[in-house]
């Protein structure tokens, strides 16, 4: 039995509660994402994410297109990281059709994927600090470096963001003259930039105050909710697809997997900084050891590919988490089923749990620390 006083206090409280809608047109939602929040004062009581503003049914379109025709369309999922999207899709088709990849192409894939991770995390730091109110300062530092990496992509693939670089059984084109040297030069410069960013941010009073103890996720909960990538590892779970389910030639490189201990926004922020150092280690080794040889398997069929009937699931460690492609073939030229496992969407499963009990201003920081991209969330 509820006593009369309790009933009164609930109704009093419900009068006090305030419903607000954040987004879809809000700069801190990283695109067209909407959250319906219920506030008690400034504290979040309930938070419901609303999806679908950027939905264009990517999967249905892909099921009406040839296997090769889908490759440029994967660029548009996570439009910051087109090269890792290409790789995940190519990996699944290669598993489905049993296509081998030559060594040089595997190295080029590792190099481009780690460059992608670097530029994604640099932009992430800038946007996160934007969300904390440091308007554009860190973002410009991050974009300055990202620009150099995008220039590398442009001279390699012809496009800065929509790279459409990988093919089943290899890559589309070889590196131009001087590209490796330029990539090495940029890789050698980046540790200094990271030092600068660390000096600027890690002990910064505002960053510490806004992120430590905010949006904490315990490791067990993170596993059950399927969080992946930096968000998972910030909660102390050692799980990196590059190590666990090694693809390409990642087993040849010496790198460690940074882990957080608390699982709050600060750990998620620090983890990206530490991950960039490891990416630089991989890049340095890959650029030095880049073997000569063909960049695409001459036997691999790309146009009019008709894989044998069956299914395959390929997954990679994209900068945002575990990106997977699940394909079902019915021997025809278009996939019977084409499914993208979007890390950005699944990482939002715990958004409400992270935000409840926090202040409304923290919601913006928590969302920023997850690092979502709406092209991939809504597909």
């Amino acid at each position, binding site marked *: 039995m509820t006593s009369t006083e309790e009933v009164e206090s609930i109704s009093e409280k419900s009068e006090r509660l305030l419903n607000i809608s954040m987004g879809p047109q809000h700069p801190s939602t990283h695109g067209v994402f909407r959250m319906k929040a219920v506030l008690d004062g400034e504290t979040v009581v309930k938070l419901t994410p609303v999806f679908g503003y950027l939905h264009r049914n990517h999967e249905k379109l892909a099921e009406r297109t040839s296997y090769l025709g889908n490759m440029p369309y994967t660029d548009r999922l996570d439009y910051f990281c087109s090269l890792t999207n290409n790789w995940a899709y190519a990996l699944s088709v290669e598993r489905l059709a049993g296509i081998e990849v030559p060594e040089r192409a595997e190295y080029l894939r590792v190099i481009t994927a780690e460059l992608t991770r670097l530029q994604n995390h640099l932009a992430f730091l800038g946007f996160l600090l934007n969300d904390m109110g440091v308007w554009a300062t860190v973002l410009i530092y991050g974009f300055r470096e990202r620009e150099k990496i995008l220039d590398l992509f442009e001279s390699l693939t012809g496009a800065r963001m929509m790279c459409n670089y990988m093919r089943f059984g290899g890559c589309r084109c070889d590196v131009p003259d001087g590209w490796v040297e330029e990539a090495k030069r940029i890789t050698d410069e980046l540790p200094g930039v990271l030092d600068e960013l660390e000096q600027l941010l890690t002990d910064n009073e505002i960053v510490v105050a806004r992120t430590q103890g905010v949006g904490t996720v315990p490791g067990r909960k993170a596993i*059950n909710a399927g969080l992946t990538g930096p968000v998972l590892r910030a909660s102390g779970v050692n799980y990196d697809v590059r190590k666990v389910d090694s693809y390409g030639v990642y087993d040849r490189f010496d790198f460690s997997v940074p882990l957080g201990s608390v699982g709050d926004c600060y750990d998620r922020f620090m983890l990206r900084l530490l991950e960039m150092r490891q990416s630089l280690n991989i890049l340095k080794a890959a650029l030095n050891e880049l073997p000569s040889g063909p960049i695409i398997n001459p036997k691999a069929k790309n146009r009019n590919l008709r894989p044998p009937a*069956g299914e395959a699931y390929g997954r990679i460690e994209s900068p945002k988490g575990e990106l997977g492609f699940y394909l079902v073939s019915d021997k025809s030229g278009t996939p019977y089923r084409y499914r993208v*496992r979007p890390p950005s969407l699944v990482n939002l499963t715990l958004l409400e749990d992270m935000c409840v009990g926090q202040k409304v201003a923290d919601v913006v920081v928590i969302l920023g620390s997850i690092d979502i991209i709406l092209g991939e969330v809504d597909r």
Partner: protein
Amino acid sequence: MLDLETIIKRVQEAVPSCRIELVSNESHSGHHSLLVDDGHAVEVARFLRDAPDICLDYASNVTGIDWLNSTVKEKVPVTETVEGEEKVNEKTVEKTVPGYLEVVYHLYSMRLKQGPVILRMRTGNRDPDVHLPSLTPVYRSAELQEREVYDLFGIVFDGHPDMRRLLMWEEFEDHPMRKDYFPPEESDESPIDEQARPKQ
């Protein structure tokens, strides 16, 4: 990693009344899967998650597949008597296999760093309102993905805490990822027909 035969045996020991069978996959990936009956799927998933040597604690990918009615040609031996002599001829008979919807779960073990084990569930038909049990109580990662399957394929997950559309708006009526779905503009009954089009 335990092989699937052993996992089937262990599941049958733990959940004796469940029907579980191996679905083989002929592609190069070699990803075979387990078909579980929907009455016991939640129990089976809970066992797979909690058994210490299997420990599939992480559901990576949840998705649906729409299988349309298909015709399979089978050769059936027919005994015919022609001019007093008995002959065995082969006759081709077309059989219709009714369509169904399928949900696929890719399970991994984060603790043991193994996987995948692929679970499948099937509906009996392709009716607009088909039901399957939700695995969200076992794997929270299925929460948004099952909502997406409901939205795009029209499978209602019983036991899901928040069974709403994910990507399409609430008033939307159809399920676009079904193979027989056509958006209104593309259907034959489109109001914009030849008469209405401006003449060139």
